């Protein structure tokens, strides 16, 4: 049985200024699956997430990224989001003066408009935010504040997952979602993510700690080193990595 993967990355090379950071990434995430990317700091994991989302600072020099069969590399960041890609930021950006609710509504309606759907009514929108917020302990007080401004680390991450729930993307990329979270916050966020797993959605979870993967259990683990995937395997690979350290995998790559 062959179906179109949700995300297919083919020989992706990217650089920032003169420095090549992604050096031929190959990766396939089928629909319905959750894949993890593990790698040490500086291996290019976060760059991969930014390149997928379309950040301008990076120049793609080679390769393709297919989202549900469509090459997204020529698209603007907003078009990629409309096409169903969502990046949960490692460091969500604080934007003073832009109310969280205003932002959520603008984002939701921009995506609906992009897909040729009607704008959501205000009561429907309020209901959707309330429902999504309850599961993630995001109260209305938080939503009344400016976007991410003065949010604690945990609040920022919960707000990211709230956006993900509301925007219902096809492909979720979670960049170091566990960073800055204590164990309780990690549980809430993981449960929020797990609730969004489904046959028509795929996820790519980027982390350098195995601990997140106890909560969000992946189908496949990829080891990332020096700008490419050097090893892929079942979830047990994460444990092996924890035991051996990344150095062992760098060696294998070199061999």
């Amino acid at each position, binding site marked *: 049985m062959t179906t179109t993967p949700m995300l297919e990355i083919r020989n992706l090379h990217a650089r920032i200024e003169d420095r090549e950071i992604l050096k031929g990434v190959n990766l396939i995430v089928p629909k319905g699956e959750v894949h993890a990317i593990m790698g040490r700091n500086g291996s290019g994991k976060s760059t991969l997430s930014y390149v997928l*989302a*379309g950040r301008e*600072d990076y120049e793609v020099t080679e390769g393709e990224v297919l989202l549900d069969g469509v090459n997204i590399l020529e698209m603007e960041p907003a078009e990629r989001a409309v096409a169903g890609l969502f990046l949960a930021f490692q460091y969500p950006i604080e934007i003073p003066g*832009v109310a969280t609710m205003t932002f959520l509504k*603008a984002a939701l309606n921009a*995506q609906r408009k992009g897909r040729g759907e009607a704008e959501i009514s205000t009561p429907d929108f309020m209901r959707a935010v309330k429902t999504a917020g309850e599961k993630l302990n995001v109260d209305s007080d938080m939503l009344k504040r400016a976007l991410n401004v003065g949010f604690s680390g945990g609040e920022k991450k919960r707000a990211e997952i709230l*956006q993900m729930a509301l925007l219902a993307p096809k492909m979720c990329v979670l960049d170091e979602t566990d960073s800055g979270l204590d164990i309780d916050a990690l549980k809430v966020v993981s449960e929020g993510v797990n609730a969004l797993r489904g046959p028509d959605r795929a996820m790519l979870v980027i982390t350098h700690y195995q601990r997140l993967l106890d909560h969000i259990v992946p189908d496949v683990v990829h080891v990332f080193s020096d700008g490419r995937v050097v090893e892929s395997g079942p979830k047990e690979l994460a444990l092996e990595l924890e035991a051996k350290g990344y150095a062992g995998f760098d060696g294998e790559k070199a061999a």
Partner: protein
Amino acid sequence: MSAGPVLKLTEAETTLVAQLGARGAAAEAERLLGAGLPTRRVEAYHYTDLRQLLRSVPVLAEAGPATQGPLSIPGAVALSITNARVGPIPTLAQGLHGQKGQGGVLAQRDDVLVRLNSALAGEHLALEVKGAVTVPVVIDRRIEGAASHAAGAVKLFVADHASLTLIEVFSGSDAAHVGNHATAITLGKGANLTHITLNVMGPTATHFATNEYHLGAAAHLRTLVVQAGGALSRTQLFPTYEGEGATAAITGLNLVGDGQHVDLTMDALHAVPHTASKPLFKTIARGRSRAVVQGRLVVARNAQKTDAKLMAQGLMLSDEAEILTKPELEIYADDVVCGHGSTCGRLDEDHLFYLMSRGISKSVAETMLVRGFLAELIDPITDETVAALLHTLIDSWLER
């Protein structure tokens, strides 16, 4: 008698000298004849060299028809000054009293715009507020007809513990008017005033306005000066904190587009102990334009415990835009908290990317961020109809 003027007058100066003479202001005419309009060598006009920028001055305004201004606020008390003449004064809401007075309204000051207005303003609108007036008062200050020079004036007295929202809208026919307006406001003990001025003059007009404020004990003032119109504009704010416990949020917004020179200048005097102010001036500049923001805080020797923080923020939307900011602190007391800050830059790329990564198009994201930049100025305006008017004005500028 010494012979002749020491300086060759510009066309604008020649006209002004003649107009002062015609209005019987011989001393002022003589002074202008000797000194001319201020140049960049005069500190307060360093970035707004009037001798250079004010090329010509049209004839003094004749009485024109009182017309409806461009912006109306439902339910507001509507007053007008057209071509420097006070319009008919309707029966006012309870607590409000208005009448026509003679002459100018500003205190003497070594400033050319103040002196010109005082010499040329034939009459003024005098308003008095007692108690809490809940409906906003709007004064339509228009210059109608062919290009003319108008020096209008308003005097407002807010009695002890009274409160009011006053909005002044400056507009006019599409001609090269020179408006030089004055507003003098006195706040009694515990009085509370929100004063909003909107400059929406036509694209060839020159707009000068001087707002003088005297704050009594425990009085609270909020100002918002919005400058969006005119080829050359300068609004001067002269607040004096005269009673202990007086506080003010002096705010201003310059919306500066291609070909415009817009200046917002504040010179504040904290004269007594225990007063506080937080001047906040924001500028958005695009096209080939120049914005000037000057803020001076003077703290008198006995004005201990003054708490004053001046902030200027600029947002540049083009390569050719220029924002010049000059903060000055002059502190003679030794137990105060005073400071100033200034930022200037473009829209933040990280902010833009974050919004776009959620599906919001670049142009919408930019608009959201610009509105976000301004939120700090508009959010404190609690009157919903007034806030809506401001949003409309800003949005139409952004879409221009």
